[in-house]
């Protein structure tokens, strides 16, 4: 589905959008969270081997809380993008319908 008005292409392909969304979710959000989790595990392992006590626990809690906060923000950001993309696709589809109707 693509609109071509006065030589200007407002082209889009709903399948491309879905593929891009899936890729962004997997490659940007999923990989980022996985990478942070793995790196945080290594850091925790080090701390557990070198530092004990209440300060060490608080340090690990702070690090974990920050990582979780960032991971959650990444997921929330993706949800906004997903909804935005669908809104754009819907607007384009209804614009397409309107143009076709106009020619009937």
């Amino acid at each position, binding site marked *: 589905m693509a609109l071509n008005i006065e030589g200007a292409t407002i082209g889009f392909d709903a399948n491309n959008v879905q593929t*891009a969304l899936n890729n962004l979710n997997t490659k940007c959000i999923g990989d980022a969270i996985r990478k942070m989790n793995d790196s945080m595990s290594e850091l925790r392992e080090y701390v557990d081997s*070198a530092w004990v006590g209440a300060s060490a626990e608080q340090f690990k809690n702070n690090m974990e809380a920050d990582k979780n906060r960032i991971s959650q923000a990444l997921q929330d950001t993706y949800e906004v*993008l997903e909804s935005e993309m669908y809104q754009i696709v819907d607007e384009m589809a209804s614009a397409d319908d309107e143009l076709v109707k106009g020619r009937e």
Partner: protein
Amino acid sequence: MPSIKSTIGNFVHDVQDKLSSVLASAKTQIQNIVGTATSRLSNIWSGGFTGMSEQGMADLKAQLSSYCQDVQDLIDSFDQTGDITSALRGEVQTAAYDFIAAIKSLLQAYVSTMRQEIDEADEAYRNFASSDKSISQDVESSASDIRSNANNIRLD
């Protein structure tokens, strides 16, 4: 009667306005998410340094720097995500670019805050160690007073 050209022109204008509004609204929402998350990052040293040696502190800083580097590599890898968005055009591509820019800035703020904490760690550790030393000196001094008092009591 309006011409076909102006009718289509107005129609395209309306569609563009709606799409611009969708993009602007999403951008604001994403900026708020990023802003809120980064403003709530912890002071990682808030629990103090009890039980941590000076050498342990140096090793911990190296481990933290390695963690920061992993996140930095992640941010840099997003520059190679052009292939994800290259199939897109127009507003959907703009939305994807804005999204990638936002998550890069989120992760960059996270790493920058952590690097700042690493830079401030030595001073925080020194302050903590000196206050710890001062507390133990106070305790030692009090203990000495108690011993002296006890001796006095015995002498009495």
